[in-house]
């Protein structure tokens, strides 16, 4: 597109300049080199409840504090897969995905997190939360808890009861024990 500004012709090119592309290719190469380097380090195998085996690299494993402490305390034979009876293969692959993105995706992590959440229904969210708690992955656990909070914030008691599957048995209790804040703090 040719536009005229201040009497001079300025050529606007929609595509990215060539050097930017070159830089991206270079970055990609660097990333691939890093990945190759990491592949040489010994991976650890994890076995899920449905008998699927995953090979996980140490940098991801580091996030799973529970597995890490298992490896550290008992001299585990790395040729044998570590059993994780509480985790399904579907959840483990999600967890590995999340941990990977959390470490390597510095630019659009938020975008990934949004996509990640969208792909889960409430039930899957709960399962994943329990899995994250079991494996003791702080980043994922905090992220999921925070997402839960977003879901229930400003919702009616009925919605929350439904959400957590709570049976309402409190009609008699309500008047007996008043909460510390009786809705007196102004909501913005």
């Amino acid at each position: 597109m040719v536009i005229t500004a201040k009497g001079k012709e300025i050529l606007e090119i929609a595509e990215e300049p060539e050097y930017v592309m070159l830089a991206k290719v270079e970055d990609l190469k660097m990333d691939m080199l890093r990945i190759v380097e990491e592949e040489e380090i010994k991976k650890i195998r994890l076995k899920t409840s449905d008998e699927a085996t995953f090979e996980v690299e140490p940098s991801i494993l580091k996030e799973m504090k529970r597995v890490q402490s298992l490896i550290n305390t008992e001299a585990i034979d790395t040729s044998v897969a570590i059993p994780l009876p509480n985790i399904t293969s579907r959840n483990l692959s999600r967890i590995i995905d999340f941990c990977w993105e959390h470490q390597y995706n510095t630019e659009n992590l938020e975008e990934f997190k949004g996509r990640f959440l969208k792909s889960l229904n409430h039930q899957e969210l709960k399962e994943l939360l329990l899995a994250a708690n079991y494996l003791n992955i702080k980043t994922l656990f905090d992220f999921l808890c925070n997402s839960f909070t977003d879901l229930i914030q400003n919702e009616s008691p009925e919605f929350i009861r439904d959400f957590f599957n709570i049976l309402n048995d409190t009609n008699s209790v309500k008047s007996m024990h008043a909460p510390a804040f009786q809705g007196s703090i102004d909501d913005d």
Partner: protein
Amino acid sequence: MSKIEDSGVDRISKLPDEIVCHILSFLPSNESTATCLLSSRWRFLWRMVPSLHFDCNTSETYDHVDNFLSLRATPIITRFHLNCKNPCFCIPYIQKWVSKAIHGKVEQLNMFLCETYHQGFMFIPTLFTCTTLVTLNLNFSDSVYLHVPPSVHLPSLKTLQLDSCLSLYDFKKFFYGSPSLELAHFKQSPRCGFLPELVLKIVRSPRGIIQLSHANEICAIVIECDDGYDFIRDYLEGDFEKYVKVKASIVVHDTNSKFKSKFRFKYVHEYVFVTLKRLRNVELLSFSDFSSWTKYADYDEEFTLDDLPIFQNLVKLQLDIKDYDSIYWTLPTRCPKLRAAARDNRSDVNKDMKISC
């Protein structure tokens, strides 16, 4: 507790108490407290929530907070969040709450104080030596000045966000006292009077990439290094000689529209020249200038080629210059080792401009 819950088909509907408490800890305390109405199991659950989260704007709030604190059943406070619109009322209580949070092994502390409070604000000194603190976010209005004690020691601190009336000198105390820092964001507000506007962002990624961005009203500077040289200390101390294996990028804003005087123009570019001189040892440089030189053509005489430093190590240069009159077009001639130069095609008026390679 409830038979119906236990016999339900949905085996994980009943999350363990600790997890529920952790979820509730992200809610404002008044909302987490309100969950006591949900069921008999939830009646006392809020007392175990490991967080304090208050948004207050009336003086009555403080009595409720005290009430709330006395009813809580756990000393643990992982997260402390205070958003106060009227710090005049709040100040006497803040010390007490913060000290409770520190005793409760606080990991995340967010504090937003707005409105005017014309006095220096001093936290209890133990906050600056809190070993559990991982995230600290202080956002004070312009008139609240924060006193920082001479020694800061926050061994676990990873994220620091300071948007308050704090000088760079105070920020340095935080930076040097927090060895595990991964992300620091520091904003110096211009309305503090003598302090110029400045936004400093430091990122140390676990992969060993260190990035610093320094933005003020004149230009934005980004320096990145991925070979493990932690240049931040040198930067804060003004020691730029060692900057060789770094990627630097400078963007000069179009300040002409904002400041219409020629004097301003000169001041801006003197600053840019000094910045370029500081970065003269780098190997990679990206330079963008969005100011219009044509308007102040007579300044060409004041800024001569010799004022530009010689870039001894520079091998790759990237230019994006709006105005064809700009002196920065001569940058390639100041780089004896230059191997690759590129221009952003957006300002293509200079198509004939020879770029030396």
